[in-house]
């Protein structure tokens, strides 16, 4: 039994099956991007154990194809197992060993990146200073106690919790938060402009004059969902303060009073705080003369890190990111009128893996094929002679 299992996991057939399944998956996943958008297709096909059908997550689903994680993991096991079993040191096999060792590093690194890398954005207008970056998709409900003299106490509730329309009870708050409705993607309209019969979902703040329409999830790479929710505040000593509309589309936070303190309530992109801050000095956007073709984007920023006594100016531009304390800042975009820059902030602890893997595999392939070539031309010469 065990022997059969070992045979299966070390077989070349399994390798070929995995590779072929990988091709089919990538092909299908690429075509799916046309309708689903890159992010959704990626989640469904590549960053999953199985591809499920029908795609609607609410109903009954059956797995119809192995997903990227499963294929990658089986391939990784197959690679390692085959090499453990057959490994015999031999100079002539050097190329093959190197190639596969590099592939193991690459696959493992890829898996690691999928699990641990975090990508976020930092949007800076001229002169802005920020010590946090924002998630590109996830939002959070922030409840801020502003009554402290020079310190705000912030309690955040991630979107994944809001989605389930639950009542949230947190020890730091003198009230409970009931999620009355949640929209993954929505459009807000003033009641006066919405059609007849439109009802507000809140009765406090500006939300009482706004109608919320659910819309299909965003698929284009440059669009993001606009989540909205109706939040009821229930003081722990009984009663209700009313229902507020919170939405990513609403700008300023809303305030209310409870337990003798003033609170702010806002649904905003999830934040990742950093022990240092970045200030935008200048954003530059060059175009080729007489055209609208962008030639270069660059952001001149000041990096201030009191902990490490760093205070310096940095130029971030295309293909020249800033790497600092395990995070990398890239010039990702800009506001249409050039008034703000958008930096992509990436935390990827395994970013070095592909670099190593590339060198090792390339060396391996060169040795292997070079060896073939030499042997072939020697035979050829003998045949001619």
């Amino acid at each position: 039994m065990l022997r059969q299992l070992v045979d299966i996991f070390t077989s070349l057939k399994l390798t070929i099956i995995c590779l072929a399944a990988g091709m089919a998956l990538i092909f299908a996943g690429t075509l799916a991007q046309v309708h689903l958008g890159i992010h959704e297709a990626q989640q469904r096909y590549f960053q999953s154990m199985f591809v499920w059908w029908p795609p609607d997550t609410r109903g009954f689903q059956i797995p119809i194809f192995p997903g990227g994680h499963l294929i990658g993991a089986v391939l990784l096991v197959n690679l390692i197992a085959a090499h453990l079993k057959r490994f015999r040191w031999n100079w002539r096999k050097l190329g093959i060993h190197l190639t596969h060792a590099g592939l193991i590093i690459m696959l493992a690194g890829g898996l690691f990146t999928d699990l641990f890398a975090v990508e976020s954005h930092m949007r800076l207008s001229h002169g802005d200073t920020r010590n946090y970056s924002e998630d590109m998709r996830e939002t959070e409900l922030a409840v801020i106690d502003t009554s402290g003299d020079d310190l705000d106490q912030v309690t955040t509730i991630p979107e994944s919790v809001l989605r389930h329309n639950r009542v949230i009870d947190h020890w730091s708050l003198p009230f409970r938060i009931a999620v009355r409705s949640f929209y993954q993607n929505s459009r807000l309209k003033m009641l006066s402009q919405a059609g007849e019969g439109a009802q507000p979902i809140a009765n406090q703040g500006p939300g009482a004059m706004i109608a919320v329409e659910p819309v299909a999830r965003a698929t284009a790479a440059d669009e993001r969902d606009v989540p909205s929710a109706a939040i009821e505040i229930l003081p722990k000593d009984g009663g209700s303060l009313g229902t507020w509309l919170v939405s990513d589309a609403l700008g300023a936070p809303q305030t209310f009073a409870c337990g003798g303190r003033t609170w702010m309530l806002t649904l905003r992109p999830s934040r990742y705080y950093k022990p240092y801050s970045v200030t935008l000095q200048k954003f530059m956007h060059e175009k080729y003369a007489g055209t609208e073709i962008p030639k270069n984007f660059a952001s001149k920023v000041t990096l201030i890190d009191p902990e490490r006594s760093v205070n310096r100016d940095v130029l971030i531009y295309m293909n020249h990111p800033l790497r600092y304390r395990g995070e990398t800042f890239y010039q990702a975009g800009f506001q249409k009128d050039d008034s703000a820059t958008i930096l992509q902030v990436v935390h990827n602890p395994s970013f070095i893996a592909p670099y190593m893997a590339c060198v090792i595999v390339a060396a391996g392939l060169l040795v292997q094929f070079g060896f073939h070539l030499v042997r072939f031309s020697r035979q050829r010469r003998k045949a001619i002679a």
Partner: protein
Amino acid sequence: MKRFLPWIILAAAVGCIAANWLPSKTARDDFDFSRFGEIPVLVGGRVKPLDTVARNSLLIIHGKQELRLESGKRLSAMQWLADVLFNAPVADQYPVFVVQNADVLGLFGWQQSDRKYFSFADFSPFLKQIDEQAAQSDKLEAVQRSAYQSAILNLRNGLSLYQRLKNSIQPEGAENFTAELQGFASSVPGAATAARQRAMGENFDKAKLDDVAAMIQRYERLSEMAYVLAVPPNELDDEWHSVGNSLLRSVRIGEIHPVVIEYAVIGDAYRANDQPLFNQHAQFVTDWFAREQPNTTKRSSFEFLFNRLQPFSQSMTLYVLAFLLACGSWLGWSSLLRRSAFYVLLLALAIHTFGLVSRMYLQERPPVTNLYSSAIFIGWGAVIVALILERIFRDGIGAACAGAIGFVTLIIAHHLAGSGDTLEMLQAVLDTNIWLATHVVAITTGYSAMFLAGMLAIIYVVRGVFTTSLEKQTADSLARMTYGVVCFATLFSFVGTVLGGIWADQSWGRFWGWDPKENGAVLIVLWCAIILHARWGGFIRQRGLMIMALFGNIVTSFSWFGVNMLGVGLHSYGFMQKAFPWLVGFMISQLALMAIAAMPLEKWRSFGPARVPTRGDQPQIPAPLPAGQAPTH
């Protein structure tokens, strides 16, 4: 005598090319369009000769680099451009705009007939309507547009380019622009005085001011419309300007740029049909540029030469010739024809290389910067590898592959050039020569090798199934070549793909983003890995290898073109509706070849029963496989 055949063929080929390359003499009493076409201008962010502007504009609008009038007379791109720039009423009558979509024609109440070229004058009553319709389809993504919407948008873009061209050097319809400029120059100082007086609250001459104000309005419109920036930088400022803009600036500077005046004289001479004056001033301008802007001029005169030599179409012809010679070598006179093919290929490759290197010089970039140049480079790489194979095996196979791939890739490039300037400036993210030189070159070299392997497989199948010429030795050689080329493809595709990941990591922090183009590249790597492992594991033999190499053609063409047609992702440079049927056709043809190759071996003419018993060299490598084991996995 016979043994000189290869040399005779080579000499004939050289002779033909040289005849094509000799400059055509301009008669003394004719407009010297080549002199005029050499003048450098700035368009699309790049300094190029007017000749390039003419060719690219005509290509965008008309689909060809030459215009044939209804009278049968042919106009070169430069002749057409001269009319557009200086003699708009005449140019408006030329049938340059291509419209084939019946719905677009119906919009104007026209029926679809055998006529597909229309003049600007034909459309002039409908300009507003066209603009409105196009604005609607402009809101959609390229992928979402219907045929009608793409066609109307194309027409609008062509018309707008044409109108901008007409207003590039002088206001459309100007009669005597030289005199107009003289008047402008003489009235500007008076107007400046008047303006100053007005500002100070003194008495001023209103007529003088109004005169110039009307001119300024005219030149503002000219500067908004201009497509060509014709006025070069000078010591006062370091930017190129359009004629209109330069005239507006001259109000402040106090003098009109000499190039503007020269253009005016040239234009007036053209309208007056005064060839000597036209030629004399065209010469003045080129001399002026050579003196004042030596570096710019050197590059743009070279580009002018490059346009005239058309190296890629010359080598395309030679590749066809070589392919025919190589195929002929399998029928008879083998060694002579094979050598002839080899020499012709060397000549074709030399010209191809000249073209490739010229583009690199003109653009100051590594060879591959867009889809067009990838086609040029894929052909080039494949031809070199195929020639090496020919040198080693000396059986005409490498030569046939080189000819076929060289020709097909150049044809593809020719059709990709329709969108205009193939030496366009690069988007900011691509503006890095290191990655263009490594990642892009490695990936495209991988494509070359995959197509070469596929071509070898095509030869194997066609010769094996349809002819009796595939002997054991040839079959073995083909298998060896294919295997070697697949190894080569694996190396380059893998390295190229990973380098792409590293570039992505460098420029936006994501090693792998599942972008369609990345996925296409990894499909090739996976397919190569499958072929190699299947062969090492003994799951496939010679024929299996060939069938898999044929499928490699499909994978590679999907990766090269197919993913761009999806219209998503960071690499989707231009959606190409027109290429779609060709791509599908190519894929189907490859599937058909795979099906043919999967036929039982007795049906192959080269391996058929009639041939088996006579030879001791059976089993012909693709020996019948044990029952239950398919030849391919």
